């Protein structure tokens, strides 16, 4: 009988199977992005021609640029708003309508995207006809929509960080003569910075990735990258999309490896 706290070999088999399931499609996608042939099933030799075509595809490039801009603004605004909300609920255990506030913050986390997208579109249409803003739909309305659900994710992350935050650090700083605002800047902010960074990155990714909400809230002439990918993919498998996917996955993988390495180094420094 194996001791319960030692990993048991069949479990590793399960893990191997699970990871294979998660990664096989992605690996195949990368592999076939270098395929000379249009067809997935035929390997016609190594080629980077689809990357070349992708880089000449104005529509995709424009959409990518638009998506990056939307994601950047979304990440910044939702990090600020989410941090404020995280502070309010982590630090104030009782205030009027706190329950309603919590509900508003947590519902977007689980709300089906179609519901969020549709309802926001209806709001924008109603606002437009009532006060003339936002006139038409486009990057602005998509950004507002993205901020709305990303803000909830940032709040969760910041609040969790603050929940485990040792308040006596702030008290110690105050005791040593720092005024509240100074305490926030010199003690609190540096210590919760990792949570803010995580929230920012998550918002950026969620915004960059979103198709459904953007499809509802965007207008003509403002197609985000997922919208362009979607309309191209609906028509079937496209090698250019394979190439695009490979680039996106590489960027993410690089980023994750980099941050993983940084965390590892930090850990090592901490132990050593």
């Amino acid at each position, binding site marked *: 009988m194996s001791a319960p706290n030692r990993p048991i070999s069949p479990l590793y088999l399960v893990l191997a199977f699970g990871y294979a399931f998660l990664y096989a499609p992605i690996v195949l996608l990368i592999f076939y992005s270098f395929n000379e042939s249009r067809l997935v099933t035929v390997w016609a030799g190594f080629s980077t021609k689809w990357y070349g075509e992708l880089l000449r595809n104005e529509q995709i490039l424009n959409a990518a640029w638009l998506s990056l801009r939307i994601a950047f603004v979304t990440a910044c605004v939702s990090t600020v708003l989410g941090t404020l909300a995280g502070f*309010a609920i982590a630090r104030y255990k009782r205030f009027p309508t706190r329950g309603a506030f919590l509900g508003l913050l947590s519902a977007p986390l689980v709300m089906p995207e179609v519901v969020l997208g549709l309802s926001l579109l209806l709001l924008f249409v109603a606002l437009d006809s009532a006060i003339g803003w936002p006139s038409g739909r486009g990057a602005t309305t998509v950004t507002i929509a993205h901020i709305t659900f990303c803000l909830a994710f940032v709040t969760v992350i910041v609040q969790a960080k603050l929940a485990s935050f040792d308040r006596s650090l702030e008290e110690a700083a105050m005791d040593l003569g720092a005024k509240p605002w100074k305490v926030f800047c010199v003690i609190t902010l540096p210590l919760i910075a990792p949570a803010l960074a995580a929230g920012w990155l998550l918002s950026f990714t969620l915004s960059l990735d979103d198709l459904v909400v953007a499809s509802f809230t965007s207008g003509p002439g403002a197609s985000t990258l997922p919208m362009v990918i979607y309309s191209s993919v609906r028509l079937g498998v496209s090698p250019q999309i394979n190439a695009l996917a490979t680039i996106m996955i590489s960027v993410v993988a690089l980023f994750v490896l980099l941050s993983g390495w940084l965390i590892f180094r930090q850990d090592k420094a901490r132990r050593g």
Partner: protein
Amino acid sequence: MKSRRKGSGPFIPWSALAPYLWLLLFFGAPLAIVLKISLAAPVMGQPPYTPLFEATKDGIEWLINWDNYLLLLDDPLYIAALLNSLKIAGISTLIALLIGYPMAYAIARAPESRRGILMMLVILPFWTSFLIRVYAWMSILSTTGLLNSFLLWLGVIDAPLEIIYTTFAIHLGIVYSYLPFMVLPLVATLSRMDMTLLEAAADLGAKPWQAFLRVTLPLSLPGILAGSLLVFIPATGEFVIPDLLGGPDALMIGKIMWTEFFSNRDWPVASALTVALLVLLVGPMIALQSARKRDANAETPQARGEAA
């Protein structure tokens, strides 16, 4: 001063104001508008629905129109789509649990030094585009796709199988896309579990499978609940997966909403469908919230212990 108020007061804290207003305007108000439009009648024009009330000289005349809801009940298409969405989401959740639980168990039992990497490997696909991950399956499952070619090459089949555009493909897509949401809460619960409990069970004569059934499984129920709801709720309203992997006849509520809205331009019916979907999901959503709250409460003393 903040610290003197001891976390309670008669006012909404100033830091809550901006996010509060934002959410009221861009989350609360839209839902109210959906409710309102679901009670209107479709008309040609902009906006393509009738107002809810009209100010007449006698006061306000309400123009509430229940037709959209009656249509939902009347037309078997909508009921079938709602039920089918629940069924597909339910089955997919079960499959995700069956795959995710052993994975989470293995990760939770792995040496602590390796656990971080293993978790990272589960989260990593989540950071890559959802759309592209679904698209990857299109090229695998299509009739001229890799899986069929492979099976043909093996000689197992003579003609390509219809895998894509089936319910099976939808299940596969959902399980694949939402597996991380199942695994992560399970790992959290399982790795928090006190391992000496299993040793105590073994010491008291329980065989490993008995210890699993009587100790591990009941203790991981909060994780099972959270993970399952995290898969089930978004899967019910899923649009992309049934659209890309399911056939044109794939009846899922998210897709029907999309079609009603974009193709048929019937905003009131789309709104009524939205309300119906929300009503269906409100139970699971509340369950998820309370599961999270319980989990957070269970976590707090530990977090404090670590901080000290």
